[in-house]
């Protein structure tokens, strides 16, 4: 970039970057802004500063229960789909599998099927079989969606590291299990963390599948959606949204720090 350019005639790319970032973050920043606004209507002008929506948030058991539901489903889905993804990634990258191409294709298909189609077909299947709708059915559908993402992340990590490292561990006297724990796992760990974060996030804000497959226990996105009809219920949702935004910021920052550490110790380009 030309550093001699005067500030009143900025570089085209700089202008583009500023517009881009504004476009992405301005709407998000409305969330904390209105969560501290005294008025219960989400509109300008602002009426004054308050913490009452945060108090209301803490004192609304329905919303906190929905939050807990989402966290429970999210954690379970993240752990299970990452485990499945890890096993699948190991199988795909380490063994000569017959029919590897078609199998991989079918595992990845949920990524491209419109969710609404997936949701309807799952609903039909689950009601036909006679399984009652619950958070379990929601979690199951999230697994279907999250496992391909976990696989993509972990396959790239597994492919990125040299097979002879595992052979070296075997050669130095470790069995397959200890080779996994002493060599494969530590090297793949940044990928596992990335996969956990990604799958948790996908599950946490997944709406369509949850909407179709839940019964009386709403997840957070469904609770928020239903709150839209009641203006008084909305400001606490903004407060919750702002809190989640701050927490995710720190989680992502931590994940990125962890990933960079991983990149540094193995000398390869990470994910």
């Amino acid at each position: 970039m030309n550093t001699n350019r005067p500030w009143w005639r900025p570089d085209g790319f700089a202008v583009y970057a500023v517009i881009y970032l504004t476009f992405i973050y301005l709407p998000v920043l409305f969330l904390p802004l209105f969560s501290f606004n005294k008025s219960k209507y989400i509109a300008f002008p602002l009426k004054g500063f308050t913490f009452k929506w945060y108090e209301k948030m803490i004192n609304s058991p329905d919303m906190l229960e929905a939050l807990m539901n989402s966290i429970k489903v999210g954690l379970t889905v993240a752990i299970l789909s990452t485990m499945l993804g890890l096993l699948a990634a190991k199988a795909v990258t380490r063994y000569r599998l017959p029919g590897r191409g078609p199998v991989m294709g079918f595992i990845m298909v949920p990524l491209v099927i419109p969710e609404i189609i997936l949701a309807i077909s799952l609903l039909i299947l689950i009601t036909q079989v006679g399984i009652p709708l619950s958070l379990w059915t929601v979690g199951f559908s999230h697994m279907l969606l999250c496992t391909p993402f976990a696989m993509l992340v972990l396959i790239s990590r597994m492919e990125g590291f040299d097979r002879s490292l595992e052979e070296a561990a075997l050669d130095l006297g470790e069995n397959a299990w200890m080779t996994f724990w002493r060599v494969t796992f530590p090297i793949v760990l940044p990928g596992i963390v990335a996969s956990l974060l990604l799958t948790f996030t996908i599950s946490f804000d997944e709406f369509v599948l949850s909407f179709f497959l839940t019964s009386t226990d709403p997840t957070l996105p469904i609770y928020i959606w239903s709150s839209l009809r009641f203006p008084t219920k909305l400001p606490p949702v903004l407060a919750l949204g702002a809190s989640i935004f701050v927490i995710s910021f720190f989680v992502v920052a931590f994940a990125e720090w962890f990933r960079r550490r991983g990149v540094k110790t193995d000398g390869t380009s990470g994910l």
Partner: protein
Amino acid sequence: MSDAIISFQGVSKHFGSVKAVENASFDIQRGEFFSLLGPSGCGKTTLLRMVAGFEIPSAGEIMIDGQPMSATPPNHRPVNMVFQNYAIFPHLDVRNNIAFGMRKAGLTRTELDKRIDEALELIKLPGYGKRGADELSGGQRQRVALARALIKQPKVLLLDEPLGALDKKLREQMQIELRQLQQQIGITFLFVTHDQEEALTLSDQIAVMSEGEVMEIASPGQLYESPGSRFVADFIGSMNFFEGEISASTDSAVTVQTPVLGEVKVTGSDAGVSTGQQVWVAIRPEKMQPVFSDPGESVNTAGGTMGVSAYLGDRSHFYVHLPQREDPVLVALQNLERSMTHLHKPSQPVWLQWASDAVVVLPRD
């Protein structure tokens, strides 16, 4: 049977229809520096990986120190390997890399520390213990890989083209160090390489492989001076081949009639040939002496004209055109004087002469 540390008994390995190794049967003696030499895809690495246990033979048996190995997984074999890319664990420092295989050795912390220090001393990297894998140069990584394998005190150390990734100067230095190390600790080394010069420099015995088969096993000197087949003669170093027919043979000497070289007298060749047999006459480039005036002889002499030449620093290569031969003959000459330019004038008449014991006679089908 003598003191064999590894014995290949009819070992074959097929990948589908590809025959990677075909019926290999030979012994490696205890304490030898043994090389598997061949072009890429000749099966040398597959053979090594079968010794390590990463591949299972399709047929035959590999014995290590008298024990059959077919049912023994890699982690229970008394051999250790230095991998082509060294396979240094990226998440561990040098000390922990070297200590990796010692978890079950039953040493106390202080004993282990002492052993690691000795190993670092052996590879001339004392004080490097806390370095990470990404803070090491190629040569240092190679030494760490060596230490990590040697600390296990294997019966055989397997080396899969360990010098291939190093630059020429460092490679030559590591060759000497490897040889010294092997003589110092006395462990059998099984070394895989495609570099024939490297194999000649390092080995006690070399097995030359081609397309899955072991062509010949001999010492470097034997392989170079009296190769047993045209393939080996061609693969090791450079060689000029001429067609010929045996016209007379006694115990000590044979005479070969060749269309290009005329009559060739050969002594000291142990190829069991008989009169009337079709043979190859093979002469190394450095064993042909060019002279620039007619020597007045016809035996072991051929006249021609000088073609192009190449200056290689320590020696020069000349291509000499002989009548009735399309390809020029390669002649190598040490550059004993600083100016050798008077020798290479194109189209100048030149006579090539060679000693009768410099010629190799090989059967021709």
